[in-house]
């Protein structure tokens, strides 16, 4: 029994577990230290929580694109972050025009809807073109090749938009309707955070029921289970793949506008960090798994906003908020090492990765 166990555990496993244990211990120690020190009041924690939820729900929306495409094509659409960027960046010009003409203030809901539509249409178009031009010819190529293509496409898109719209930051116009705070008893929430959370939740529910309830959604799920079998069952696999990209593009475009409304600026490089975070979220929930991506996004958002003050502060690290991105990346690395199947991981055992 003991011998069997010894044979199964390799030295690398031991190293890994030691590293994992050490990080976990650090997190617990840091959190306890922070809580004992009591630097933050419960209002602070509530603020962190709401901001985390808002950010997390945007990540969840982007993560849908990664997870759906991974499901059908078994590839990481590295350029999805640019699909995300293209929407709000293009819609910025519509929003700015509305703002200048005063239409944004007189009809805020209508103009926001137009902005959303433009963003979603652009992102969808980009996702569609991406699939058609870059990925379709490589359907049966060795694994590394589509990945490299995706990286190339990502840079191509970034710098195309840089060339088209310029390299500076553009400030998203302020929507008066979304300014201010809402008071719930003794807690206050920024209105924009509430709007983002609600809008993202609605979109996620709509997406989920589309995938679960409709015929097309069923077909997409079938394709991601087994391409050949679904082809034999009369499903147009190519069309389903395109549909997947379109759905991913739409949700990325909507997420992009929410993100731009929250952070108030757009830039050609704005997709990179949220893109990787959303990918982390998708992996966290188990890539290819749709509820997993939603859960992973929200979890990551919370972890990222609570983390720096919760455990880095307690460890006596200066300016912990600077390390926010490092937390997300560390988490990605840790999940991939210890539980590559993610929280809800059903698919993607090591052999498929």
């Amino acid at each position, binding site marked *: 029994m003991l011998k069997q166990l010894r044979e199964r555990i390799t030295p690398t496993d031991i190293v890994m577990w030691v590293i994992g244990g050490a990080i976990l211990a650090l997190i617990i120690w840091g959190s306890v230290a922070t809580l004992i020190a009591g630097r933050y009041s419960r209002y602070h924690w509530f603020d962190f929580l709401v901001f985390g939820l808002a950010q997390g729900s945007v990540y969840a929306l982007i993560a849908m694109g990664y997870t759906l495409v991974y499901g059908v094509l078994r590839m990481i659409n590295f350029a999805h972050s640019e699909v995300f960027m293209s929407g709000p960046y293009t819609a910025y010009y519509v929003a700015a025009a509305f703002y200048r003409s005063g239409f944004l203030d007189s009809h805020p809901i209508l103009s926001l809807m137009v902005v959303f539509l433009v963003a979603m249409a652009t992102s969808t178009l980009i996702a569609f073109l991406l699939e058609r031009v*870059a990925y379709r010819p490589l359907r049966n190529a060795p694994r590394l*090749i589509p990945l*490299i293509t995706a990286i*190339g*496409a990502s840079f191509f898109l970034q710098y195309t938009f840089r060339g088209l719209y310029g390299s500076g930051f553009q400030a998203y116009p302020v929507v008066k309707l979304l300014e201010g705070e809402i008071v719930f008893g003794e807690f206050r929430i920024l209105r924009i955070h509430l709007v983002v959370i609600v809008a993202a939740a609605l979109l996620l529910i709509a997406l989920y029921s589309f995938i679960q309830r409709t015929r097309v959604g069923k077909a997409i799920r079938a394709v991601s289970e087994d391409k050949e079998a679904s082809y034999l069952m009369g499903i147009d696999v190519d069309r389903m793949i395109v549909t997947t990209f379109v759905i991913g593009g739409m949700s990325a475009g909507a997420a992009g506008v929410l993100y731009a409304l929250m952070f108030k600026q757009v830039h050609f490089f704005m997709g*990179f960090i949220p893109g990787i975070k959303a990918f982390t979220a998708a992996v966290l929930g188990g890539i290819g798994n749709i509820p997993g991506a939603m859960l992973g996004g929200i979890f990551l958002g919370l972890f990222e906003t609570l983390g720096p003050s919760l455990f880095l502060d307690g460890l006596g690290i200066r300016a912990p908020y600077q*390390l926010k991105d490092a937390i997300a990346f560390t988490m990605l*690395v840790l999940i991939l090492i210890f539980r590559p199947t993610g929280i809800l991981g059903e698919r993607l055992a090591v052999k498929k990765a």
Partner: protein
Amino acid sequence: MKQSIKIGLIGGLVAVLLALIGMVEAFSQRDIISGIISMGHTLLLLVAVFMGYLAAKRTVGSRPLRILANSLLCGLVVGALLACLVLLGHVVNLRTVFVNAMPPLYQLLTFNQELGTGILILLGAGVLSGVFAGMLYLVPGLARRILIISLSSIVGVGVLQDMLRPTFSLWGPLAIINEWLYTANGLTLSGAFGLFILIAAGSYFWARRGNAIRTDLQRMPATRQRVLKAGVFIILIVVLLALPRVLGLFLSEVITIVGLYVLLGLGLNIVVGYAGLLDLGYVAFFAIGAYTMAILTSPELGFFSLSFWEALPFSIIMGVLSGVILGIPVLKMRGDYLAIVTLGFGEIIRILVLSDFLRPWLGGAQGIAKIPKAHLGNFEFSGPQQIYYLILAGCLLVGLISYKLRDSRLGRAWMAVREDEDVAQAMGINLVATKLLAFATGAGFSALSGAIFASKLASVYPHSFNVMISINIVCVIIVGGMGSIPGVIVGSIALVGLPELLREFAEYRLFVYGTALVAMMLLRPEGLLPEAVRRRELHEEEIPKTGSDLVEESGSIK
């Protein structure tokens, strides 16, 4: 008919996109042939000709007139779309959205004429390039090749004028060529014609006699072949040693940058090219090498003040160690996941270096300055012309090591892992050791490069080590050909050297990288100078069948 309109529309959209992102205008600063055609126009013409050629190729049937009509139509459509852009730009102010849609662009597209005549000329140019493409398709293969070679070398000589002109003028007798060939901006007309005739004649001669010369060489006795090879080798070494003297300060700087990328590329080539582990965080090891050098040598931090040579081994050892440490967690990962995790590693290291938390040790956003230069006796590796030798030595060493490793037991193990991990393991290859050695070797080379980089700049900043460097290196080895050592060199020259030389290119560098990666993967996944094994692998179906296969097939029919 429909097909060629479709191809023309695609080409037109590409041309409009190139115009709108500002590439055409940026490139029009430089004339290829003085006063006649600029680089920007050449870019658009290339699109039109390429699309026209495609249209000609896709034509059903082989009637020359039909082919010509199709390519003409395609060229016309490309021109028409550009004309639409100009017209639209005159009606609406596109500038509010597209930053580059400015009057100079329209002037450029209408050849500095009035709107009406300009658009007619634009359409005419489209038609002409379409017809040219059709003709190109119709003429026999040899003539087509000669035409393409000589035209592209005119473009090449024109594009590289800034590099060639000063080089020519440094050498007394060559200065005459300079005057004949170049004006202040671009080639002279007579120079371009002369060059065209010269190169056309040369390539015709080579096409006729090339094979004969090659067989002559092969038939030579072995001893003479060896002497010839040694001679070529010695000439190469002499040229390499003399290069910074010949080229002057600016070009030496460019070459040192290319050299650093060759070093980095050779390192990543082992990880990605040999072992097939796509590492997107390769810049981490570059940073580790550079920072180790900085911490150990810079008096600014005051921990140590070693000399360059004393610190160099520590840099490399730190690189190797971190390669192993970062390698262990990712041992079980493959493909996409590995890429993302290594990308994460690269970013984690950059964020840590940038943070205030580690500032007392790593200098934070201000970095570390006052890194001493390397000395060898009395020779100081101070400017680019001196550092060049350091980098050259590094490249030769690393090149030799990776050349020797390729055919070694370890190299073959790496390639086996690249092809199929499970099978490799079943064949008795120790996956853990093999992969870790790949990471460690690659990281060591990268750290060496980083150490030289730190001493070259005399300072290190976290911003020098962003994810773009990793992507650049990946591009270099992919464009050059994964696993191929000459490929790394060609890739670095093409992707790092050219953008340094062409200042208008700099802005579009990553755009071109992205395009190159996608185009490479779609059209020629094995790279420009592929390794033989890899080419065979990626083009399995295209290998001509051997005799026995054919016999078997015909046998089965009977």
